[in-house]
């Protein structure tokens, strides 16, 4: 299983701080598009992804037990 964390407005859309789901073997891009469909998440293509607190690109493969976090960059200032 994988713990998937959502930050900022993504958390509001999903309705939870994290989800437990099985993402092992999937790429970050695959997980993003699945979540996009299920939760209607906005603008996932530019959301930063971390696996185990380390920045990861869209083609990184997720392993069993990895913690995935989605961190949307914001532009306010």
């Amino acid at each position: 299983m994988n713990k998937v964390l959502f930050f900022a407005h993504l958390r509001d859309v999903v309705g939870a701080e994290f989800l437990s789901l099985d993402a092992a073997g999937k790429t970050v891009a695959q997980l993003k598009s699945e979540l996009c469909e299920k939760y209607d998440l906005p603008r996932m293509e530019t959301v930063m992804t971390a696996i185990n607190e380390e920045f990861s690109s869209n083609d990184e493969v997720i392993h069993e037990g990895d913690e995935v976090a989605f961190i949307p960059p914001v532009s306010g200032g």
Partner: protein
Amino acid sequence: MNERYSRQVLFPGIGKEGQEKIRGKHVLIIGAGALGSGSAEVLTRAGVGRITIVDRDYVEESNLQRQQLYTEEDVLGKLPKAAAAEKRLRAINSDVEIRAIIGDATPELLEELAAGIDLMMDATDNFETRMVMNDVSQKYKIPWIYGACVGSYGMSFSIIPGKTPCLNCLLRTIPLQGMTCDTGGIISPAVQMVIAHQTAEALKMLVEDWESVRTTFVSFDLWRNQYTSLKMSKAKFAGCLSCGEERTYPYLDHENRTKTTVLCGRDTVQIRPSNQGEVSLEKLAGQLGSLGYQVKGNPYLLSVEMGPERMVIFQDGRALIHGTKDLTHAKSIYQRILG
């Protein structure tokens, strides 16, 4: 050593030598909103030799809740932010050479200012300007410190050319419709938290303590009690057009820039964003509606009342701002909503 900086000199990370280095430096601050006024105040109090601050807006009532250099008098006087900031900064520290530039942070302006700048502070409210800063940073080898916030959420990352990944490595493209303070609201503790991180990194760079500069990407949510710092060692993208081997500095190029045009005789400005792409008009309408904006629309466009102006947004991100001929003002309105 001046008594003024005695408490800072006492701090071992700075010391007398560090204070003299700070005194010799020139910092460019892009934006004089919440982050810009806060960073400018911290760096002015710290005794930076020269500070140049660029902003295109004037002080409005809704700024006072979080923009720390401004008072009610500045709102009444409709002072440009850069001018109001300069006035207050001089009263705080007459040792510091302050230069205020009232205008848009275009690539031309930033390239013109780049010579002699030691550090750029990000205090802008949109990604387009950040990508320009990022290219200028790489081209002229000037570090810059990204910072942004919305609601109770914020983030910061230090970018050092030749050493760290750059913003274009992380984002690869300008996010369309990033959250802004005008769409997600903002509380001032989140602003303070970003400023704390940005200015701590600034002081480290100004005293040239490169070892201590944070290498992680910080993000936090003060309302939800979250704080994370991400390792960024894998974030550098070899094919990056801003910092890679085949770099072209795409955001300094006229083609990749938001185009603003006054539509002849119509008191209207047309905005054509650099990152053309599908805008979800339906979602945007729902979002703006729930924020209290008056919104009308059909599947092809959305019309939003914004005080004296009216903005019409099309599916491809293009917009018309009715009720103004001022290009900079129109762009500012657009970026407030679409980031």
